[in-house]
């Protein structure tokens, strides 16, 4: 070992380890600064200004919180879109979780052609993009027409109070869409189900537990972490989907004469706060459930 003093090999072990650790992740840290942190701060500064982009550069006039108050108190379209987004998320997330758990439990059984069904249920993940969904929705391919347009359903809908009607209507018209967002979740549940030790079920069966009891007392508690991951994944996926009304509106306002970069940045931050709020609720709710079960 005829190394020089600067050679990492003669450093103290922990220093050496940290040196190599940092050299593996340094590119990410720099990237985080350039592509996430700085733009995020920049966007926040934009949101406090009236921004006009000209050929020569960017002109900013400091307006304090004006963009925020405008979005929250004088822009009905934005507030409406936020409320719609929250309702859609609150309706979709539990459905996606329950649905993907049920499908995963089906796929966890032993039967023939399992692979075929697994392929079908995962297919949407591969093809779901904004323009494709938009075209399919426009042609009425994402709702089963026999259900959504039937007289019985529309009669029931008319009986419902307004606050309940929006979610139910959303559910009916985008039913297939909601299911299409379950692909990854089904596989995550499936792999967690396969990791549960079968001997626990056998022990429970010997003690006289029914399959129903085993589900509530063994399966569900074992899946609590997975459920939390799935819930967060689902919320993020839904919030990033480019056909999301808020994203479309924010994007439209960026180039609008009335809006501009400052205004759309403010809306982006409001949306971000809403998103964090939703994530926090889900986290607290599921985490509390997970803890109380053990």
């Amino acid at each position: 070992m005829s190394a020089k003093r600067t050679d990492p090999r003669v450093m103290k072990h922990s220093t050496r380890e940290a040196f190599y650790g940092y050299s593996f992740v340094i590119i990410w840290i720099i990237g985080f600064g350039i592509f996430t942190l700085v733009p995020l701060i920049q966007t926040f500064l934009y949101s406090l200004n009236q921004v006009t982009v000209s050929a020569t550069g960017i002109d900013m006039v400091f307006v304090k919180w004006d963009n925020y108050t405008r979005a929250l108190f004088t822009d009905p379209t934005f507030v409406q879109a936020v409320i719609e987004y929250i309702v859609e998320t609150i309706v979709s997330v539990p459905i996606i979780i329950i649905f993907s758990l049920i499908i995963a439990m089906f796929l966890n059984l032993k039967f023939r052609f399992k692979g075929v069904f697994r392929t079908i249920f995962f297919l949407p993940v591969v093809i779901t993009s904004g323009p494709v969904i938009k075209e399919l929705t426009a042609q009425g391919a994402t709702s089963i027409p026999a259900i959504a347009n039937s007289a019985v359903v529309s009669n029931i809908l008319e009986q419902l109070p307004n606050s309940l009607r929006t979610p139910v209507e959303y559910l009916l018209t985008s039913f297939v869409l909601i299911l299409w967002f379950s692909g990854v979740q089904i596989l995550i549940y499936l792999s967690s189900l396969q990791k549960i030790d079968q001997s626990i079920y056998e022990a429970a069966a010997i003690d006289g537990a029914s399959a129903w009891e085993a589900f509530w007392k063994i399966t569900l508690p074992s899946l609590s972490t997975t459920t939390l991951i799935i819930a967060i994944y689902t919320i993020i996926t839904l919030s990033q989907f480019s056909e999301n009304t808020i994203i479309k509106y924010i994007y439209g306002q960026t180039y609008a004469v009335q809006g501009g970069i400052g205004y759309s940045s403010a809306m982006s931050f409001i949306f971000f706060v809403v998103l964090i709020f939703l994530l926090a609720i889900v986290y607290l709710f599921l985490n509390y459930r997970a803890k109380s079960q053990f």
Partner: protein
Amino acid sequence: MDKIYQDKVKSFFIGNRTSYGLVFNILLYLVLIAIGFVYLYPLLFMFVTSFKSPSDLLNPMVQWIPTELFLGNYIKALRVLDYSVTLPASIIVSIVPSVIQAIVCSLVGYGLARYRFPGKKLLFILLLATYIIPAQNTVIPQMLTYRDLGLLGSVWSLILPAIMGQGFKSAIFILIFYQTFQSLPKVLEEAARLDGASDIKIFLQIALPAAVPAFIISIIFSTVWYWNETFLTVIFLEGGIQTLPMQLSKFVQAYENLYPPGMVNIFDRLNEAVKLSGTFLNILPLLLMYFVLQKWFVESIERSGITGE
């Protein structure tokens, strides 16, 4: 004797400890086929409609089986989508950043999995933050910078973030590599270290070969995600490279440029069959990729251990 026979019949229908029984199996298949149909309904609808001729479209009797195999919609859609240009563009825009992203994420994932250094916890929190922060909160300053650098509309605007580990959904891929490297036994690496191998050598010659599945998973998933991504591509690439989904999102406009509404006869007007054949052409490369690499897609999540323990 009678009792045994009864039991046999009963277990044939209701099932016993080793099999589910006929009734349960039939129910299972019924439910799965019903849900499978709901899943495939939009695709079937799209596929069937795209082959309908204009007269089939107007004919209410023609629902699921077109009277003829009409390819006119596809011929128009291919022209409107500018397929021979947008298809290669889409392939480049989705594969190049994906491969680069996978390489960088493997580096970062390895660093997080194998080394102890101060600030690692913070790094994980920031990693999650990059996953949660919506694109629209960071995209405009980036776009303005690219404009100043003259990179707007070029594939570099997607490659640069990928090189720095900030590509589309990079955090997920870093976590996949992190899990993969953590689950590898350390023994080999320690043995190599005792033999005097450098850290880089250990990473390249021992860790990387064992992470091939993670590479395949990362590359195919991020290819799909880059392909389907339109928010970022519209902002970064508009005016330059046109991807298939971008062209699809302005299908109507592009169609009317090629076939001006006032100039063509009624059968050449834009109808849903043409639009849906455009949509089908848009997802066709992904469908082919899915059926070829199917095993990797569906088994990948189990392999990658993304479920997190």
